[in-house]
């Protein structure tokens, strides 16, 4: 699938194959005894766990030691503290997913100015430029993910209906792109559908926001939630109201995947490939530490996942067999 989005500064995407390590590169990296730190927005989601696994595996192959993996719990303050602390550890590189925009920019820039190679995941704070303030941004094609989610939800929306978008109330490149793309796809392909949006400030508020929106507009016939973890909260809240609304989201987390397989609300998922993204991130880090040029924006295309291809998508994304519950939900297995 082609990349349809543009980077945070309008960059054209480079494919992950653009950062490839040859055997001699891996040898060179091994001789350098590199030290790398990882700063994540959260380590609780399935997406984060698989991304980190992808990073750590490739770094291990290159003899690079991961000195820390920080969970910032979506807190800008915790991220700033972590970056300032790690700066004093003087790692060769920091891989970071900035949890916000302006508030964390200075801490990232300070790490970069200290001579530490900075590779960003999914978000580039405003004012930070590739090649100057960071090496590369490695992300999914979030614009493409928003379009996939719109297309998946569209077939479940009756004519002249209303769709709700549950966005994230933070200035965050990835979720902004998904939200904009979802609305644009509907505008072009389903002009009969009215899109209404609201935003949650924390994951645990997503369900509450969804219900508030539904109360304001009972005509809502479907929901798009910008990623899977808040989607779980929305599913719970909608179910408590005994509402049956089709929902699409992003990321093949265990709970929403099970829900899709068992036909319990989720009708489609735009999936990222976190493990492969993690590998691309690690290859970008090593490439930059070998003083070779890196693309400004490396992007991985999304996968369109519906009930019909959920098993193979699960295997592709998580690199393991689908859980028994999912197989049962799809009636691939009949005996419990």
């Amino acid at each position, binding site marked *: 699938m082609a990349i349809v989005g543009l980077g945070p500064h*309008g960059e054209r995407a480079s494919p992950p194959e653009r950062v490839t390590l040859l055997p001699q590169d891996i040898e060179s990296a091994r001789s350098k005894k590199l030290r790398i730190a990882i700063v994540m927005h959260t380590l609780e989601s399935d997406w984060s766990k698989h991304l980190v696994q992808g990073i750590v595996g490739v770094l291990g192959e290159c003899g690079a030691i991961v000195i820390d993996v920080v969970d910032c719990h979506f807190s800008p303050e915790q991220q700033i503290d972590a970056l300032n602390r790690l700066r004093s550890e003087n790692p060769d590189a920091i891989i970071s997913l900035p949890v916000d925009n302006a508030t964390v920019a200075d801490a990232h820039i300070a790490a970069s100015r200290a001579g530490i190679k900075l590779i960003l995941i999914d978000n580039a704070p405003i004012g930070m*430029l590739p090649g100057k303030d960071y090496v590369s941004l490695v992300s999914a094609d979030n614009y493409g993910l928003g379009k996939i989610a719109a297309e998946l939800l569209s077939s479940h929306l009756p004519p002249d209906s209303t769709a709700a978008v549950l966005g994230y109330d933070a200035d965050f490149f990835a979720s902004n792109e998904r939200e904009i793309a979802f609305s*644009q796809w509907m505008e072009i392909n389903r002009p009969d559908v009215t899109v209404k949006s609201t935003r949650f400030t924390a994951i645990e508020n997503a369900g509450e926001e969804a219900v508030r929106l539904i109360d304001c507009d009972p005509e809502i016939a479907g929901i798009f939630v910008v990623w899977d973890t808040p989607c779980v909260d929305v599913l719970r809240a909608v179910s408590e109201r005994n509402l049956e609304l089709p929902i699409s989201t992003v990321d093949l987390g265990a709970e929403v995947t099970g829900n899709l397989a068992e036909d319990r609300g989720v009708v489609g998922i735009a999936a990222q490939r976190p493990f492969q993204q993690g590998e691309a991130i690690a290859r970008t880090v090593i490439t930059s530490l070998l003083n070779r040029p890196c693309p400004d924006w490396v992007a991985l295309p999304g996968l369109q996942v519906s009930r019909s291809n959920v098993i193979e998508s699960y295997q592709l994304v998580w690199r393991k067999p689908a859980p028994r519950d999912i197989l049962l939900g799809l009636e691939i297995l009949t005996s419990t």
Partner: protein
Amino acid sequence: MFVKMGSSNANQSKGKGRPRSTETAVASLVDVLNLVRTGHATTRQELERVGEYGRAIVADRLTTLKDLGLVDESATGTATGGRAPRLVQFNKDIARLAVVNLEQSAVGVGISDLSGKILAEHHEMIDITDQNMTVDRICALIKWMLSRQTISADLWGISISVPGPVLAIAENPFLSKTPDFLPNWDNSGLVETLTQKFQAPVWMRSNVETMTMGEFHGGAGVGLQSMLFIKVGQRIGAGLVNDGHLFHGSSGAVGLIGQLPVNYGDVTGTLDAMAGSGMIKAKGAAAAASDASPQLADILARAGDVNAIDVCQAAQMGDTASTEIVVQSGRLVGGVVATLANMLNPQLIVLAGSIAQSNDILLASFREAVYGASHPLVTRDLRILRSQMSSSAALLGAANIAIEALFDPTFLKDWIIRGAPTEHPGFVQSLAFLDANLPTSANEPPPPPEI
């Protein structure tokens, strides 16, 4: 208050700080604001010294500017013996600017404060041959961006960067009609729709000018006095900063180097045709079809088409045929730019555009051509870099162009006492004309998604 200053007889003894009429009072108000805004004066004492105004005049003008919300004196500076002085600061958050970058195949929209800092931006692919859809999309994105702002502030202007030259109309401080920057765009209603929809003045410059301005204010050109900016895309254009200022020429048609004839082998054509993305795409497609490039042939088989970015990325990954195509482009552009460099002796040449951004081969062959064809004195301290700003340069440059226009003394004097440029008599008149002559429902974009 300052409007009464013209009749006051107090403190009439010296210098520039003696307004004798409302007109001179407005002039000093404009001057004080611009001294504060540009950082030339940050305290009352500095305003008295730099502006050559008396203490009472400074106090009066600052009172007026504070009442208008344009300056703030709540912060204190560093004491140099005695009490710490109050800092006079421009309130850059009193309003916002919308900035738009329109390219042949992409659109970028951003929001900036009045210091020119970009606060939010978004870029997406678009087919600008569909003018109505493009205008609607720009409106929808501006509305979405404004809805995401945490500070509620009025919109004071929209500045657009477009993929063609915009001829200067000296008598108008803002646009009232869409100029013909590309064939038939004068009938698109872009400027008219934005003015009417957002009730704010609109400015427009070419991509090359805005990107040059952006690179100079926020990229590799910061702190320099002279810079050549070269944008390589379907068209190839140049921008020049000389002595710290963007060079406009007599009518704004600056840097159209893509029209120059060049030779490569036995073939002669314009630089646009011989080195632009059209050439790269055409030669790449031919290499794919003839199997001269297995990598491009693979892309053609899978995607059904090969574009210029595919060729540049294939070159970067070592494809021989693609490398030859990109090297041709770099050498030809470098040859023309060497002539400019020998004439102008810039401190820096910045190569930009998506073609330059996606590979290092173009930069390498461009450098080789410039260094090879230039006088040693020209290249002794010359740096040649690739832009790191992508399309953000155009947004930043567009913001700076709007700020220059808003605070130009001849425009500012007519709105400052009204508190906002949207109250400028010329703009109010222009808006009334549009409302009377254009139906407000024309080009009405769909409402942005919101509760």
